[in-house]
């Protein structure tokens, strides 16, 4: 039980991570979007 419960909780975390959509491709899109937006504001 000492290791099975924490392992099970971590596996739920692994499943929860599928809802996290920010993969590298998406983050590049966001970074570029913010970069051009900041350039418009001279930041």
């Amino acid at each position, binding site marked *: 039980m*000492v*290791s099975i419960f*924490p*392992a099970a909780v*971590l596996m739920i975390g692994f499943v929860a991570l599928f809802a996290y*959509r*920010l993969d590298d491709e998406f983050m590049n899109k966001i970074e570029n*979007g913010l970069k051009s937006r900041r350039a418009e504001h001279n930041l």
Partner: protein
Amino acid sequence: MPNGDQKLSTAEKFAYGIGDGAANLVFQTQITFLMFFYTNVFGIEARDAGTILLFSRVIDAFNDPLIGALADRTNTRWGRYRPWILWTAIPLAIAFVLCYITPPFDAIGKFVWAIATYNLLMILYAANNIPYSALSGVITADSVERTSLSSWRFICAMGATFVVNTFTVNLVAHLGGGDSKIGYPATMTLWAILAVVFFTITFAFTKERVQPNPHQRSSVWQDLSDLRHNGPWIALFSLAVLIHIQLAMRGGAMLYYFNYCLHLNNIFDWIDNFGVFNGVGLIFTIIGVALAKTLVSRFGKRATFRTCLFLSSLLMAAFALLPPDSVYMLFGLQILLQLAFGPTIPILWSMMADVADYSEWMTGRRSTALAFASIIFGLKLGLGVGSWFKRRTA
């Protein structure tokens, strides 16, 4: 400054990391020694000491988002978050030492002193550490550099943990000349001075490069509402809660595991084994943390996190299959587990900054510190739930 490629120098990464080294000179001391100090030196009941710590968690639930919202609305020539690190350094150091002073009061007076000083310390700690955490989201806009920055942070934090856990007991005895009521405040004064120096280095040698829109005007409610509609934030919050439930359950339970499930007395005394087991774990966690940037650069942040989490879960479950006398397999498994889990630590924190980016991209509003504060609250919630669950299952 235009937001171009924002690679950071090693010196700036170290200057950032040393700030968490400073914070952990305070935080690790609280975790490891405060309860013992309250019951064995200060002179209050364990039940009262537990009440003080529990009360502080309730205050945290309100304090953390409040600090986050205030930090996001700070505007100085030094930036939004760096000034908080400087402003809180000396008050935090003083509150830290006050926690370890034993005034000549009766039982009620001591309880009031302890609850006042501990909560003052925790409020100041949040006022320092939440803006510090948010700083990692604005030092660079480069997502991979943020992982590297967080790796430096946790390597420094673990270094401070090692120093505190290794030297505090001897320093208390040495500086107090055998009197712990003198030894504890003297030792904490030493850690406090070091912490102030480290915080000052972080303030002086880091720079905030990511600036929100200067015309941004939003209420705290608007910022909270933005988080509620931010899918990646919800996923990350849940993840922070779950990971820290697991850490709290595993932390204390391993001591019981060594004591009652393993039969290693014929090789070492069990407590020596447990110390070595933790030491080996810490070394390989540091190696795992240091590997994070390389793995993220090669495989991507989300894929690395997912794989490391999956492997950690399997390796942790494998402890249940170990024969009770297999010391080499036990240590081998611990090494693999900590190597697999290590990279998740900095990646989780660098993802918090990515979530703030996502929110800004979606809404045009940026609230970096609130994004961090809310997930830090999730982290504390997870530790609380995990500790409760551990007590129920131990």
